[in-house]
């Protein structure tokens, strides 16, 4: 399988002192799903921004689709970014635009994507239908709930049908039911488009869903993925360092106390708690 995203000894330092990423190396192959776990401030968001070419590494190299983007000029980076979808931590919808305009934004502005005028509206509608929000086309982000905003942002991230997707904390701050809906959408997306993705979360059950369930298009529900499973790899970050990379079994066998905190299944009462 070809490599879609590769970090080689990547360090990111802010203002000369804050080490956000520390000698990070990993390689994401096509078709894989990576679940990124880690405490707040451990560098998860920075990792995704570096992988998107939004933050430049202080040292080390980053390859996306086998192209070295480490020192790539911003102009060329736009082409690389147009093949990646990204959900930001706080959704990052444009307040001044309607839901429809938000979702159409990448179609209109990505130079590498040429879409005919008459195909624009159906594409936007499709993408919103995918997240079950077709009825919000003309509303403004400020009129939507947090979960709906997250879903609109997912629609915007996938409207260009990218091969590679980054989701920053898709379930953070949501109630368990909404969080489950969002995870189901991500699984549906993965299974429908066979996309490769990096998913940041601090809920172990999110990883568990992604790793062991698949979307059944007939029933519209999640079901156990069966013995062949999914190709899900877990990564755990601590203070900018990659302290674990491996499968769910390996994760569950770990004895490290930091990693163990993400594995322990939360008691039911904890599930509704806000994160961050």
């Amino acid at each position, binding site marked *: 399988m070809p490599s879609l995203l590769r970090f080689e000894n990547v360090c990111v330092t802010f203002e000369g002192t804050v080490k956000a990423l520390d000698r990070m190396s990993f390689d994401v192959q096509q078709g894989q799903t990576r679940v990124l776990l880690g405490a707040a401030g451990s560098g998860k968001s920075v990792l995704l921004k570096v992988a998107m070419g939004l933050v430049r590494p202080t040292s080390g190299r980053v390859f996306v689709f086998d192209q070295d983007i480490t020192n790539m000029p911003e102009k060329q980076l736009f082409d690389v970014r147009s093949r990646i979808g990204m959900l930001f931590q706080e959704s990052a919808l444009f307040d001044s635009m309607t839901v429809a305009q938000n979702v159409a934004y990448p179609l209109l502005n990505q*130079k590498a994507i040429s879409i005919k005028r008459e195909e624009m509206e159906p594409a936007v509608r499709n993408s919103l239908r995918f997240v079950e929000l077709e009825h919000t086309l003309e509303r403004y982000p400020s009129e939507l709930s947090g979960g709906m905003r997250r879903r609109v942002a997912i629609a915007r991230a996938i409207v260009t049908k990218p091969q590679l997707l980054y989701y920053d904390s898709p379930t953070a701050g949501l109630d368990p039911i909404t969080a489950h809906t969002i995870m189901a959408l991500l699984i549906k997306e993965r299974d429908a488009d066979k996309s490769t993705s990096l998913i940041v979360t601090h809920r172990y059950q999110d990883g568990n869903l992604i790793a062991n369930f698949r979307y059944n298009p007939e029933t519209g529900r999640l079901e156990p993925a069966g013995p062949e499973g999914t190709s899900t790899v877990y990564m755990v970050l601590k203070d900018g360092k990659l302290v674990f990379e491996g499968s769910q079994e390996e994760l569950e066998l770990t004895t490290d106390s930091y990693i163990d905190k993400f594995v322990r299944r939360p008691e039911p009462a904890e599930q509704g708690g806000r994160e961050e």
Partner: protein
Amino acid sequence: MLDFLKSPIAAIQEFFELAWQAVRNIGRKPHYLDDILIQMDSIGVGSIPIVLLTGFFSGAVMALQMGRALAQYGQTGQTGKVVSIILVRELGPVLTSVMVAGRNSSGIASELGSMKVTEQIDAMRALGTDPLKKLVTPRLVATAIMLPCLTVIDDFVGMVGGWVIAKLVYGLPSLQYWTFTWRALEWNDVGQGLLKPFLYAFAVSLVGCYYGLKASGGTQGVGRATTQAVVAASVIIFVLNLFIGKIFVSQSAS
């Protein structure tokens, strides 16, 4: 030893980098004409009420004071002349620019600042747009066009304010007032009066953009950026005004 100078120098360098990019983008595609028009409306049309009010009252108070001062020399008739020269050369450009800075440098800083801290700026870059082209250049262009226009309005309303006082308080004939007002102005004054707001437009718009794009640390950071932008833009306007005034004074003296 000079460490304390490091961060202001770095900031100035960053600011000029931003300014240079913003200016360079004027000639580059894509041009976001819609955004320029929206900003012209918000910065230009939106500022008209405040410019009308401050213009009128500043002209009026100047006529009031000048009329009295000139009366000592028996020259009350010259009030229109003095009012128009001061308005067109100095007060109109500075007052308008400072008002617009208070209204729009802060507005720009808070809008861009909130976009920054909610990752909308990152999202723009992720989705194929250069924030400098989409956000900064349209604001610069719109301000550079609208600020001179607003200054002309301010100058005129100020003269009207002066006329009201000249007529009601000092009983000057209207024709005399307007004739003096009009004749007092030379091309040099008009050029100076238009060049100034054009240059201050860079301070008003770019300082707002600079602090907005640099904002960090949530809503508090946005508030901080907003205040800093107004203070910095206003100070820059007053400093530039002295330098430009000096250039024009020495030019017309020679």
